[in-house]
Every structure is written in C-alpha cells, then in structure tokens.
C-alpha cells in the first residue's frame, strides 16, 4: 500500500538505484499494472535514478498514485539540485550523451512511459516527471 509519509527515496549511492527499482516495482504492481508495464516503469525509473547519480551526484525520487477522468496511474518525480541540463531538446534526442553513455535514457523513457516532463535550470537542478496510466 502507498503511504503518504514515506513516498520519497533518497538517491545518493549506486545501491539506491536498486532500492528505487524495488520500490517502483512494488508500487506499480500494487496499483494493478501488468508485468509488461511494470517492467517499462521500473526500467524508466532505473534510467532516471542513474542519471541523478551520474550527473547530479544526489537527489530524490517521489512516487504518487494519480487519478484523472476515471483513470488511475503512477507518477514518479526525479529531482536533484545538480548542474541542470543546458539544452533539454538535445539531451532528449537518442544518442546524445555528455559522458559517453548510450544517450538512450531520456528518449527511451519517453517512449516507455505515457507522459514525461523535464524541468531544468542550469546551476539549479533538474526535475523529471513521468506518468503511466492503467489501461482500462
């Protein structure tokens, strides 16, 4: 069950990525997502958590059960106070990576989820919000 008070996980160590994955798997499964969607959501969470580790050093993930027009869904927020993304558009293109990575994290997550929003301010930090709706 989703408890309001502990719907946040710190991301500081590489091992926190595992914690994020486990937590997201549990929450998504509890909300009623099937295995394929759970895997899509957990994979996305893993990408965004690793981005926080790689580019910001530390941050948090928050999760919410969301409702809209008879639909239920999951919303995950990945927030950090890192360096920010200078060119969000470029960073969202497949293959763009500032550290020799595959550059598939952001564009791939967009495909895996139903909605994705990136807010970033250079020097301030980055917040990525992703959503997935339960198929009726």
């Amino acid at each position, binding site marked *: 069950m989703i408890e309001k008070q502990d719907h946040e996980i710190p991301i500081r160590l590489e091992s926190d990525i595992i914690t994020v994955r486990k937590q997201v*798997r549990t929450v998504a499964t509890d909300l009623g997502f099937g295995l394929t969607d759970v895997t899509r959501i957990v994979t996305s969470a893993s990408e965004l958590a690793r981005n926080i580790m790689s580019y910001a050093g530390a941050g948090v993930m928050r999760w919410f059960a969301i409702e809209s027009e008879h639909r239920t869904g999951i919303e995950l927020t990945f927030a950090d106070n890192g360096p920010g993304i200078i060119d969000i558009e470029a960073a969202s293109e497949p293959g763009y990576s500032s550290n020799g990575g595959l550059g598939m994290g952001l*564009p*791939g997550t967009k*495909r895996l989820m139903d909605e994705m929003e990136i807010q970033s301010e250079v020097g301030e930090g980055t917040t990525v919000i992703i959503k997935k709706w339960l198929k009726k």
Partner: protein
Amino acid sequence: MTNEGIAVIKVRDVLMVVIPPEPDDETVSNLQNQILRAIEKNEASGLVLDISTVEVLDSYFARMVSETTKMVALMGARTVIAGMRPSVAIATIELGLTLGNTLTALSVDRAFDILHNASNGMKPR
C-alpha cells in the same frame, strides 16, 4: 555496498555465467573483469550469459553486456545471451537498446547447442 556473488560455471570449454535478478552497478562492472579472467584462465571458447532471472535491463546493463561480448570476441570466444524474458525484451527494444550482433538463445540448453554446433561447424572433420 552489496556485491551479489556471480556464479561462473565451466562446462567443457564453455563458461556459463548466471546473472542475478537485480545486479547492482558494482556487480555489473565486476562481472566484466571476472568473465574475461575466467575465459583466459579456462581457455574457454564460448560464454553463455544466463539472464533468465533478470527483471530489468537498463541502458547501463545493456552497455555492459554488449561491451563484454565485444571484449570476449576480441579474445577469440563467442557469447550467447540466454533466456531473456518477454517483458524485458519489450522494455529493452522500446527503450531503444540493441545488444549489437550478440547471439541469443531461448534457454541455456539452446545456448550450449549454438556454441557446440558453431564450434563443430568451424572445425569440420
């Protein structure tokens, strides 16, 4: 930091490595080293990476797998990835990842068949 142990099993001249369900980054990065050392030490001609219990394959892991495969190939051995789950295959492709030209097999058994036949094929009598 946990370092889930990785089992490296030798069957004739093929090494089999079973990847744990939730390998952390350290495990994943150690894996490469362990595999390459084991291939050298055992003079293995093939490597089977059993990923049948793996529940998430993110881009970090995918990169490690495809790089390892290339390193193994440079050392003269062949890699077969065995047992990817349907849900993992879906998320991997949708994420936009490929495993390069890596050979794949439905199960560890079949992976051994592939390596066995390939080496037979390469050493005709």
